[in-house]
C-alpha cells in the first residue's frame, strides 16, 4: 500500500532530528545536482541554439549564394550566347564573301581566257607585205603611226579655193585680207581672203578585241570578190568543214582578205585553231587559205585639232558678175601676178553663188 511507503519515508523523516537533517543534506545534494544539471542543460541548449543558428545562417548564405550564382551564370551564358551568335554571323558573312570571291574569280578566269586568246592572236594575224626604205627613229619610241587624209569640203556659193605653189605667197594673200580684183577696165570686185581650217585627228585611243563569232580568211586567190565570198560561205557554212550558219560576210578591198561572221560563237575557235583550210574555188579546187581570228577595234577617245592649210587660200564674197569659167580664169590670172602679191598657182576652183561644189583636200607632199 502506497500509504505505508509514504509512512515509512515519512517515518524516517519526521522521526528524528537526524533523519531530518539527513534528509536536508539529501535534498541539498539533490538540489546541487539539479542546479548542475540545469547549468549543463543551459550550456548544451545554448550550444545547440548556436549550432542551429549556424545551420540557418549557412542555409541563408548558400541560398543567397545560389541566387547570385544563378544570376551570374545567366549573364555568363547570355554573353557566351551573344559571342556564339556573333561568331555564327561572322561565319555566315565569311561564307558569303567566299562565295562572292569565287564567283568573281570564275568571271575573271573567263575574261582572262578571252583576253589571253586576244593577245595571243597578235601573233596569229594575216601577213601584209612591208618594205624598208631607210626610215629610222631612236629606240624607245612606240611604233609610229602614219596617216593619209582625204577631206571632202563642200564649198559655199560665191567662194573660191586657190592652192599656191609657195607657202609664203599664200600667207601673204591671207594677211592682206581684202583684194580688189580688177575685171574689165575700171571694174573690180572686192574679195576676202581667209585661211582654210580643217579638223584632223591628232590622237585616237582604241580597245581591241577578238570577235568570238568571226574569222578572217587570208591568202585568197586572185578573183572576183563576190565569187570568193560565195565560195567561202559555201565551204564554211558546212558542219562537215567545221563551220556553221554564216550570218554575214564582207571583203576587205585593201587587204584582199575576207571576214565571215557566224551565228554561233562556238565555230570560230575551231576553224582558227586548224588555221589552214582547203577551199574549192573555180578552177582551183583544194586551194589553201589561212583562217585567223578577226580582231576588231573600238574607238575610246579621239582628240582633234583645227589645221590651217599652208598653201591654200579661201576667197569669199565673190559676186556672180560673169560666167563661172571666166571668173575663175580672171581670179587665177590676178592672183598669179607678183604685183598683186600672188604667185604660181597649183590648183584653183571657183564655186558660183547658188551652186554646190565639193573640193577635195589631201596631204601636201610638195613642201
Amino acid at each position, binding site marked *: 500500500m502506497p*500509504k505505508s511507503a*509514504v509512512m515509512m519515508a515519512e517515518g524516517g523523516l519526521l522521526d528524528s532530528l537526524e533523519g531530518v537533517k539527513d534528509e536536508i543534506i539529501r535534498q541539498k545534494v539533490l538540489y546541487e545536482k539539479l542546479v548542475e544539471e540545469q547549468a549543463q542543460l543551459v550550456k548544451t541548449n545554448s550550444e545547440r541554439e548556436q549550432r542551429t543558428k549556424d545551420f540557418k545562417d549557412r542555409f541563408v548564405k548558400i541560398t543567397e549564394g545560389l541566387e547570385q550564382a544563378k544570376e551570374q551564370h545567366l549573364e555568363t551564358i547570355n554573353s557566351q550566347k551573344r559571342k556564339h551568335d556573333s561568331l555564327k554571323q561572322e561565319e555566315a558573312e565569311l561564307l558569303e564573301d567566299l562565295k562572292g570571291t569565287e564567283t568573281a574569280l570564275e568571271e575573271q578566269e573567263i575574261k582572262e581566257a578571252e583576253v589571253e586568246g586576244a593577245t595571243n592572236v597578235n601573233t596569229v594575224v594575216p601577213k601584209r607585205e612591208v618594205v624598208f626604205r631607210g626610215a629610222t627613229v631612236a629606240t624607245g619610241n612606240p611604233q609610229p603611226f602614219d596617216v593619209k587624209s582625204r577631206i571632202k569640203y563642200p564649198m559655199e556659193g560665191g567662194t573660191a579655193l586657190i592652192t599656191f605653189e609657195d607657202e609664203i605667197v599664200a600667207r601673204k594673200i591671207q594677211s592682206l585680207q581684202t583684194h580688189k580684183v580688177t575685171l574689165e577696165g575700171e571694174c573690180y570686185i572686192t574679195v576676202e581672203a581667209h585661211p582654210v581650217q580643217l579638223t584632223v585627228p591628232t590622237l585616237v585611243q582604241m580597245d581591241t578585241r577578238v570577235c568570238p563569232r568571226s574569222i578572217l580568211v587570208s591568202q585568197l586567190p586572185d578573183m572576183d570578190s563576190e565569187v570568193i565570198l560565195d565560195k567561202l560561205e559555201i565551204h564554211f557554212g558546212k558542219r562537215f568543214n567545221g563551220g556553221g550558219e554564216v550570218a554575214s560576210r564582207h571583203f576587205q578591198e585593201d587587204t584582199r582578205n575576207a571576214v565571215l561572221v557566224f551565228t554561233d560563237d562556238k565555230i570560230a575557235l575551231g576553224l582558227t585553231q586548224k588555221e589552214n583550210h582547203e577551199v574549192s574555188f573555180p578552177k582551183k579546187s583544194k586551194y589553201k587559205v589561212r583562217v585567223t581570228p578577226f580582231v576588231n577595234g573600238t574607238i575610246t577617245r579621239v582628240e582633234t585639232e583645227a589645221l590651217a592649210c599652208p598653201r591654200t587660200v579661201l576667197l569669199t564674197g565673190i559676186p556672180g558678175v560673169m560666167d563661172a569659167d571666166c571668173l575663175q580664169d580672171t581670179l587665177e590670172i590676178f592672183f598669179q601676178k607678183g604685183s598683186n602679191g600672188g604667185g604660181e598657182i597649183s590648183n584653183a576652183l571657183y564655186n558660183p553663188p547658188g551652186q554646190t561644189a565639193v573640193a577635195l583636200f589631201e596631204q601636201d607632199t610638195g613642201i
Partner: protein
Amino acid sequence: MNHFTVNTTKGVFWWNIRIVLLAKKTLLTRSTMITGLHCFLQLNAGSGGEGGEIADALKELETWKGKVEEATCVKADLALEATKQEEAKTKAKKDMNAALEQQNTYREECTKATFAIEGDILRLQKENKHLIDRLSGRKDALDLKRTRVDQLTEQLKFSAKIPDIKLKFSEVLKEEEDSEMGEHISGYHTITERPTTVLTGGQALITFEEKKVASQILRMAKCPVPVEKDTLDVIPKSLTLGSSVKFGIQLDVSKKALKFSGVRSAMSQEAIRGHLESSFSRPSRGGGEVERVEYDPDTGTGKVTFLNTGVAERLALIGMYSVDLDAHVTIKVEPVLQYHLEGFQAFCGAPERTVLLDKIRDVEDEEDMADILEIFFQKQTNSGGEIESIKYISRGKELLALFDVI
C-alpha cells in the same frame, strides 16, 4: 523554531494522511503542505526545546525540498526546451544540406552548360579562322587574276598619236549622190601603224628590188664580204616583225551646227533657249538664222543648228560668241564632230624584199661600210641584185627601223 513531538507512530501516520488528502483536495504539493503545516504548527505551537530544533530542521527541509522541486521544474523546462531545439536543429541541418546539394547540382549543371557552349565557341573560332585564311587566299588570287586581266587588256589597247600633216586643196570632186553632203565637211583618215624592228650595232637592213634576190640571199648561211684585205662573214637573217594595226576613221564636222558651253542663268529653260536663239541669229555678231537650239540646263551646254551653212564654221574658228542672258556674256562655241571607225585590220608585217645582215664587224666607218656592203650585194655573182635601200649601223648604236606598208 517551535516543534512538537508526536508520540505515536499512529499519530504521524494520521497527520500524513491528512496532509496528503488535504494536498489532493487543494491541489497543492506535499512540500507546500508541509510548509503550510509547518507555518500552522509554528503559529499554534508553543516554544519547546527539542520540538523547536526539529521544527527548524523541518522548515529548512521544506525550503530545500521546495528548492529541489523548483529546480526540478526548471530542469524539466530546460529538458523540454532541449527537445524542441533538437528538432529545430535537425530541421535546420536538413535544410542546409538540401541547399548544399542544390548548390552542388546547380554547379555541375553550370559547368556542363558553360563547357558545352565554350566548346562550340572554340570550334567556331577555329573554323572561322580557317575561313578567313581561305578567303584571304582566294582574294589574293582574285587580285592577281584581275591584275593579269588588266595587264592583258592594256596590251589590247593602243593609243595612236597621229603625226602632223599638211593639207592642200588638190581638186574638185565630181558630184556625188549625197543629200547630206553639203551639211558636213567629211574627212576620211587612214591610219597605219608602221611595223618596226630594232637594229643594233653591227647590223644592216637591205631591201632588194626583187623578192627572189632576197630569198636567194636568205638561203645562204653566210656572205663573205671582202673588207680591206680581210673577208667578213656577214650572216643574212630573215626578219620577224610584230603585229600592227591599220584602220580608217571617218571624221565629220557639221557645217550647220555648233556646240556651246558655259551657259549660266537664273532664267527658266524656255527663256534661256529663247534668248540663245535670238542671240545666235544676230548678223552683227556673226550669227545667222537659227533652225533650233537644244539646251541642257544641268550642264549649261547645248547645240545650235543654223538654217544655212557657213555660219557655224565661221563662229567655230573664233571659238566664242556673246549672248544676252541675265547679262551680256561670252560663251564658248566649238564645232560639232562625229566620228566612226571603218575597216579595222590587224596584221603582221612580212618584209619580203628586206633582209637583215648580222655580225658585221666594225672595220670601217659607218658610211664606208655601208658602201662596201652595197657594192657586194649588188653583184649577181654574189647572188645579189638591184638594191632599193640599205642602212648600216655601227657597234654601240641602236635604232628603230620603220617599214612601209605596201
